[in-house]
């Protein structure tokens, strides 16, 4: 068996394969649904209904998509430069920490000043967190996959320490949680009385900015070149290590915004369950979007829909909601295979 490069496929074909990947994902997950003794069609109907069947469902999906857009973008820009940032989870939590440190009253500023300051500080903290692994990679050749993964555990323990220590809410009845952020540090809701907040708008804007950076700017060009062929990029005079450092700053910063947005827009405080693995799901979101920042918006909504829909479905159909995680992981694997098939032809001799 061998792979032969194909000429550039048409747009239709480029889109056909991802659709095929999604269909394959549904077929594979059907087997699990059958194993659970339910009918796949009715389960998927319930998932779809739970994700988009009502205004409430739709808004819930968009709310859930918000942190995924951020982490998906963080992964997408990093993977473009082949900087394997698997640490979006940790960067998210650091963003959350900064938000409660600055947002619980330490900075008595009006909201139009306070929110931007918190955002910038959160991004700086997230960037700093990824800078470590990036420097270890460029200076010592330490694989960043392992270091960013290990940092996820370290940061979560660090957050746990803070929540039982200096950041502990004195009125929290002993729970490991921080105080609520002040009103001026809160992102307003888009629709009064609903959970969807302006974090979603910021996420969409971030996606557009990231798209412009990747497509139109020198930095984006450098990142793609480094990701594609490091040696050739170096030969052409592209400062490879510098580009990787800039990529780390960008990626870590964006991931931290997820934590800011969750605390400031939705939860109001920091807890140890701020993220049910948004950092890891961000990898799936980015791959489903084929690392395209605008595609990240769509794929984040899709993934969020599966999560939200599966929660609703499991309450009525009795299939464990973990089916959502299985579907998302399956989608990642079918998607990378599909991308391969758009570029290469498999020959069996």
């Amino acid at each position, binding site marked *: 068996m061998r792979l032969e490069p194909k000429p550039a496929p048409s747009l239709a074909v480029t889109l056909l394969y991802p659709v095929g990947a999604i269909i394959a994902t549904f077929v594979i997950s059907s087997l699990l649904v059958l194993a659970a003794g339910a009918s796949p069609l009715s389960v998927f109907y319930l998932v779809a209904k739970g994700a988009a069947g009502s205004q409430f469902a739709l808004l819930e999906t968009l709310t859930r998509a918000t942190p995924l857009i951020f982490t998906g973008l963080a992964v997408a820009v990093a993977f473009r430069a082949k900087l394997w940032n698997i640490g979006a989870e940790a960067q998210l939590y650091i963003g959350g920490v900064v938000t409660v440190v600055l947002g619980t009253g330490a900075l008595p500023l009006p909201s139009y000043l306070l929110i931007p300051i918190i955002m910038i500080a959160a991004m700086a903290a997230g960037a700093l967190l990824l800078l470590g692994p990036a420097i270890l990679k460029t200076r010592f050749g330490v694989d960043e996959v392992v270091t960013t993964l290990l940092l996820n555990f370290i940061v979560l323990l660090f957050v746990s320490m803070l929540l039982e220590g200096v950041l502990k809410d004195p009125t929290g009845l002993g729970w490991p949680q921080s105080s609520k952020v002040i009103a001026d540090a809160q992102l307003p809701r888009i629709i009064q009385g609903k959970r969807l907040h302006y974090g979603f708008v910021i996420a969409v804007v971030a996606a557009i900015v990231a798209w412009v950076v990747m497509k139109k700017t020198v930095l984006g060009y450098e990142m793609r070149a480094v990701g*594609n062929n490091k040696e050739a990029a170096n*030969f052409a005079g592209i400062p490879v290590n510098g580009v990787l450092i800039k990529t780390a700053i960008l990626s870590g910063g964006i991931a931290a915004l997820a934590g800011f947005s969750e605390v400031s827009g939705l939860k109001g405080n920091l807890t140890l369950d701020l993220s049910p693995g948004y950092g890891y799901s961000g990898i799936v979101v980015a791959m489903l979007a084929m690392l395209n920042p605008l595609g990240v918006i769509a794929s984040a909504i899709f993934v969020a829909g599966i999560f939200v829909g599966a929660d609703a479905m499991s309450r009525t159909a009795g299939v464990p909601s973990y089916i959502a995680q299985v579907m998302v992981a399956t989608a990642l694997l079918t998607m990378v295979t599909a991308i391969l098939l758009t570029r290469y032809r498999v020959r069996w001799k």
Partner: protein
Amino acid sequence: MEASLLVRGGVAEERAPAVLRLDGITKRFGPLVANNAISFTLRRGEVIALLGENGAGKTTLMNILFGHYVADEGTVEAFGKPLPPGDPRAALDAGIGMVHQHFTLAENMTVLENIALGTQSPWKLRLDRAAARRRIEKLSADFGLTVHPDATVATLSVGERQRVEILKALYRDARILILDEPTAVLTPAETDALFRTLKLLVAQGLSIIFISHKLNEVMAVSDRVLVLRAGTLAGERATATTNRTELAALMVGQEVASPPVSAPKTGPVVFELKNVSTARQGTTTRLDGLSLALRAGEITGLAGVSGNGQSALASLISGTMQPASGEIVIGGSVAGNWSPRAALANGIGRIPEDRHAVGSIGDMSVTENVISERYATPRFSRHGFLDWKAARNFAEEIIRDYDVKCPSPEARIRLLSGGNMQKLILGRALDSEPAVILANQPTRGLDVGAVAFVHRRLLEARDRGAAILLISEDLEEILALSDRILVMSKGQLSSPSKRGERSIRELGELMAGHGEVTNAA
């Protein structure tokens, strides 16, 4: 001396039984026909030379024979039995051994382990080292292939590694030995030793296919010559009844006139390395106190067997390696921080040795590739934003001026043929009219037309006043283009010689590291 090079022993007469028969082998890669209906027969005790230019299809044919590739049409028969396609194991079992141009050795393992690999049942719980060692020692002694069985391959010289490759084949009782460009990496003395070994093998009744593009070697070792041209068998001659001129004509087709070379209008020194040393990097030969000066309007050819410091020198001039000591002087002033970007800023145009791994970014477009050395200049970017229109115009300009065949500037460069990719890289390097040009193996693997194109462009650049350093393993290319020739051996440079001043033989001696050596050139 010449006589000892003769391998043919007259064993292979027409009566000798056929050991290998190829019939109508055709292989296509997309639109390219790499092999077109090739048929021939190899007899017992015979040495066939497979002669052809780079890209004529020699290596593809041998890869089919050995089962790395599957032919689209045609059959192979070894010792009267059909050889199943696409199965290296079947080829090995049929007694076919192959010495690849790029060695297939695991460097972290010993000679013995490399040779024994795959020769004992995979389900055995213990590798029988003693038996393997006995056999290797006997084969070494019988055929003059001295090499220590317990040496780690990483510590071996190139010549020793080739011996290990031959031992691998003999260990498996190969009756047919295919050698793909075996002398490309050898010094003349090592080449002689190889030829002596081949003579011993033929005397034992082995048959050999010797792939080469060097006429003198082909004349020296073979009984019969098959000439491949553009994938087709262009002719078959008994070595005894042919001569170099005839073979050269067959190889090239109608004689491609080498470009007329006018006398150089040599100008001042524009680029100079003064007493430069480089740090050790892996197994590559380092430079130690090397000096080199390039003059405007002159092509300096650097001959030498690969692995003698050429890659360190090329990396140094390209900017991908920094000097550990010594100075780089460009246009009279000492260069400061040295990097690829500094090299470009100082007007050095670079054609890298490996166009796929270093010269191009495979999954990016032609446009994105042509601007890769200059995207940060005001011509292509402002305030951190790229001007894609200017970039595209530039790509179209290069495509037109350098006769690049590609579907569009948006096409991924990976999809271009080797020749077109090289033209694009040439265009990228030469378009800004650099004062200094480094051309490292600029025509390796190209077809005749593309080679002529590259040569013409380099000569044009010389005539407008560029100082050019041409690094090539192909001595004929060096002789055809260079106004001045240097030979590199063990990281040192020979004294320079003017066009026609030294004979091929003298250059060969220098390549082998004999004769005078000087650090200054």
